[in-house]
Every structure is written in structure tokens, then in C-alpha cells.
């Protein structure tokens, strides 16, 4: 028993420890530590901008994605949903840099500024919303018809069926979409700098332009850490939100 627990702990901790060691080594090797300390106030400003970019676009992507994905599964929306799905599928294949560039080029056409944090947020939002829409739709569609028939036959209203049955059962699939979306947003956020959106991309691109590894690493390493942090937070949320009965792991089979 104890060796098994130790092994599990080892399995979880090892990658974390190795990554931290690698990052510390990278930091000191390129002198990024010194650069960060010297520009501490700018560092915090960039981190703050980065978090704003990720959290706000994430918030809207989840809100709009889940809502849209859910509406698409309603009976009256069958035709519209196939159209939306087609758009979403095409949209998802546009690369990150492309989305940023599109925001820069397209927003002025409809009379908005293509530069600054707002266009960056819009670009991130559009890039991340697709997998959430897709997974929400797929997750709800995959709920067994028997379960819905039982719920309806027992006298649940449509709203109760949706909130007490369909959405909770679809949650693992929806959560998968959210994780994909987070990965996309965290990965794309540094590019926001290119259209004046701020964030840690500033140091990364500056470092590249000046061929100064210390600046580049001082930006790149926090970006990686933020990505890991968000992934960890999401897995925690999943553990709290997803009911045990529909989790794919941890299911004890009847003996």
C-alpha cells in the first residue's frame, strides 16, 4: 500500500520538480533573473496584462461557447446548428497568428480600432470559442435518449432536464473543450503584443528582436508557468464540478 502511494506521488511530483529545475536553470543560465528584478514593475504590469487577456477572453469564450453549444442542441435549432457547426469547424482550423492578423485587418473595416487590448481580446475570444461550442454541442448530443425520456416522462420541465440532467452529464466533454480553449488562449496570448495588446509577449518579441536571450527568457518562462497554472486550476475545478458518476476515471466497478 505505502509503496503504491509513494509511486503515485512520485509520478505526480516528478514532472513538476523537473520542470521547475529546468526553468530555474534556464533563468539563471541566461541571466533572465537579473533582467526581471531590474524591471520588476514592468514585469508585474505585463503579467497583469497577460492575466487580463487570458481570463477575460476565457470568461467570454466559456459563457458564449456553452450557451451557443447548448442552444444548438434544442430541437428547433437543428438547421441553424448544422450551419453554425460548419462555421465553427472552419474557424478552428485558422492558425493563431492568422486570427490575430485577421483582427488587426478586419476590425477597422467595421469601424473599430485594430490596435490595442480590445482587438486582442476579440481575437483570443474568437479563437477559443470554437472548441467550447463544439464540445458542448457534442456533449449534450451524446446524452442517452433513454435518460432524457425517463426525465421527461417523470415530469421534469425542459429547463430541469437541461440543468439537472443534460448539462451535468455533458460536463466532462464540455470541460475537455474548455481545457483545449485554455491551451489555445494561453498559447496565443503572447501574440497579442503584435497588435498592441500588451502582455508578456512584449519581452519575448523584444528579446528576439534584440537577440537578447535574457529578455526573451524573462518573458517566455512566465508564459509557460501561467499555462501550467491554468491547466492545474482547471483540473481542480473539474474535480469539484464534475459528478463522480460521470467521470471517466475513478469509477469503481461493482464487485
Amino acid at each position, binding site marked *: 500500500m505505502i509503496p503504491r502511494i509513494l509511486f503515485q506521488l512520485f509520478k505526480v511530483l516528478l514532472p513538476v520538480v523537473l520542470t521547475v529545475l529546468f526553468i530555474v536553470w534556464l533563468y539563471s543560465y541566461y541571466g533572465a533573473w537579473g533582467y526581471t528584478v531590474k524591471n520588476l514593475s514592468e514585469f508585474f504590469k505585463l503579467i497583469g496584462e497577460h492575466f487580463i487577456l487570458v481570463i477575460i477572453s476565457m470568461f467570454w469564450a466559456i459563457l458564449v461557447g456553452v450557451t451557443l453549444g447548448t442552444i444548438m442542441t434544442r430541437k428547433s435549432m437543428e438547421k441553424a446548428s448544422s450551419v453554425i457547426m460548419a462555421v465553427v469547424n472552419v474557424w478552428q482550423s485558422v492558425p493563431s497568428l492568422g486570427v490575430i492578423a485577421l483582427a488587426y485587418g478586419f476590425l477597422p473595416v467595421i469601424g473599430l480600432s485594430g490596435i490595442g487590448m480590445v482587438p486582442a481580446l476579440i481575437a483570443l475570444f474568437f479563437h477559443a470559442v470554437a472548441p467550447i461550442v463544439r464540445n458542448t454541442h457534442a456533449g449534450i448530443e451524446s446524452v*442517452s435518449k*433513454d*435518460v*432524457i*425520456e*425517463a*426525465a*421527461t*416522462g*417523470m*415530469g*421534469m*420541465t425542459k429547463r*430541469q432536464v437541461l440543468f*439537472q*440532467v443534460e448539462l*451535468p*452529464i455533458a*460536463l466532462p466533454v464540455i470541460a475537455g473543450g474548455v481545457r483545449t480553449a485554455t491551451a489555445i488562449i494561453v498559447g496565443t496570448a503572447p501574440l497579442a503584443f503584435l497588435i498592441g495588446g500588451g502582455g508578456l509577449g512584449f519581452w519575448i518579441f523584444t528579446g528576439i528582436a534584440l537577440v537578447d536571450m535574457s529578455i526573451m527568457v524573462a518573458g517566455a518562462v512566465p508564459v509557460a508557468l501561467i499555462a501550467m497554472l491554468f491547466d492545474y486550476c482547471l483540473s481542480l475545478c473539474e474535480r469539484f464540478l464534475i*459528478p*463522480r*458518476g*460521470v467521470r471517466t476515471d475513478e*469509477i*469503481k*466497478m*461493482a464487485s
Partner: protein
Amino acid sequence: MGTMLSLQKVTKIYPGAGHIKAVDELSFDLEEGEICTVVGPSGCGKSTAMKMINRLIPYTSGKIIIDGRDVSRLNTIELRRSIGYVIQNIGLFPNMTIGENIAIIPKLLKWDKPKIDEKVQRLLEIVNLDPNEFRERYPKELSGGQQQRIGVARAMAGDPPIMLMDEPFGAIDPINRAHLQNEFLKVQEKVKKTIVFVTHDIDEAIKMGNKVCLLKDGKLVQFASPEEILTHPKNDFVADFVGGDRTLKRLNLFTIKRAMKKDPPVIRQDETIETAMNMFSKIDAEYLIGVDGEGSLTGIVSKHNISGGATHVKDAVVQTNAWLNGNASLKDGLSEIFTHDYGFLIVVDDTRKVLGWLHTEDIKETLKG
């Protein structure tokens, strides 16, 4: 006991090609506490007929009356909450524990928590699952048979006077199926619900129903007790559907107790051998049934088996398996008679007290009516 459920010329026409009548002027009345099995070949409209009762499928014309109230005038949601609903694939909610699944309707009906908890506890006991063990488990962790029991418990949770069951045991293997059927009949004896039970299996229909409603192409062919359907099938279709062995099927409808003779040749085992010998010659029997002081079965005494050494009946008694509980079906009884060489079967009650004995002639008499 008044009429609980009444269908009056209920018709369902699906719009589209040919205006086919899925259910055509179906009428029947069910008394409180009766099980009506709706049976027929696939596509006969039996599921449609059932689902019109809780308005999962709206009916085109006719009237459905539950306990004196016209279903079409009731609020759909409230109507459904007052009708238990069990489907073939159970449809337990995987995101909820067993306890939460059963508590669904009570919660929708806004019962207070202690009352809900007590109900869940009681229902789990009724369906023979240990509440402490199962309450916190999830549907995935249960076997198919266990899940279906929860399905039944869940449907009964809101104390509905009426239950609709759509092939509830259809997806369960034959052995567990028979077990669940018997168990359900026992539960029904306690709860006395009015039940509409859809099945495609005529044997199940006959076993479970107080009334059998036989449908063909949406039309009612015969609505009668299982006994009536088997003895007097209305036409060739019914006769065909119940099968050529319908007389044998009737064996399931009777208990051994009903067919047996109540004059078995019993002998107390503390009697002497002479008494036994006298009995043998007096009643011209091959065997006597040995009992103890309380009248409980101890074994069988054979005329040919009495050796010189024995002084008392208990020395000559031989253990036997040729006995059945009086509540078993005649079919089992007949099978047991043929299994043993005695030519009869000893009928006992739950405490193994001898009630009577059963011969093939008794079965014949019973089937004649």
C-alpha cells in the same frame, strides 16, 4: 375499488403518408390495483398507447381518464409527476447517486428532506437492496438487474397511483428476468399500484397481468384476463399469438395449492410399523408421507422398503425431494411430479408442514375448470 384508468376510443394518427392510425379507437378500463399488460407484435402501437397516458405522445382523439379526471385538462408536468414511469433501458441519471435518483420526483414535488430520506430508505428496502450499501453509489457501479430495481423504486418514489412500464425487464437476461418478475409481483402485492405494462413477450404478459390487452395494427383484438385469453382466444390471431402450447401456459396461472388434494396419506414417525402396514393395506397405497409431531414433512415410507428390523416408522422413513411449496406454479409442480418416481408430489407450506398432495389427474381437473 373503482375504475382508476379509462381509455375511451383513444386514437393516434401520425401526420404524413397515408394517415396511418398507430392506435385505433382503443378503449379499456382498469380497476385500482390491477396490472394490465399490453402485448402485441412489434409495430402494433403498444408503446404509443402507453405513452399517450402520460402525454409523452399527444393523442389525436378520444379520452383518457385517470381517477375521474380528464388527462387532457391536466397540466402535463403535474400529470407526469403523478405517474410512475419505467422504461426498458432504465435511464438512470449517471450524474446522480442511487439515493439522488430515487429522490428526484419527491424533490420535484418539494417534499421536505426527512420525508425524502425516509422514502428513499423504504424504497431501497422494498426492492431488496441494502440502503446503506447502495444509497451513495452511482448507477455505473450497479449490475443491470440492480439498475432496473432502482428504476422501479424511482418510479414509485412520488407515491403515484398509476405506473407505466415499457418493457421494463426486456434488456435483462432470462434468469434475472424471472427473478425480477417474481420480485416485482411481490412488491405489487404490497403497494397495489394500477399498472400499464408493455411487453412483446406473451409469457411475460400472462405472468404479470391481471388483464391482458392484445393489440394488432393499433386495434384492440382482445382485452381479458390471462385465463380467458388462454382458454378462449377470440380469434385465430390471438390463438396464434399465445401459441400452440397455450394449455401448458395455463399451468403458470394456477398455484399447486389450488389443484392439490387435501387428503395425503400422512403418518407420524413415532407410530409403529404395524400401524403403517395397516394403513398400507387399508388405503391401497405404495407410499406414506412421514411427518413429525408438528405435521412437518420428514420423508417418505415405501411399502417395499420396510425391512424386518424396523419397529417404528422413523426407521423406515427415507428423505425425499419430491415436495414443493404450495405457492409454486402448477408448471413447476408438473415438472416435479415427472422428476420423481412416486407419481405424486407432496405440497408443503413455508414451514414445511404438509398441506396435501398433487397428482397429474388433479392438474387435469384444474385445467378443465
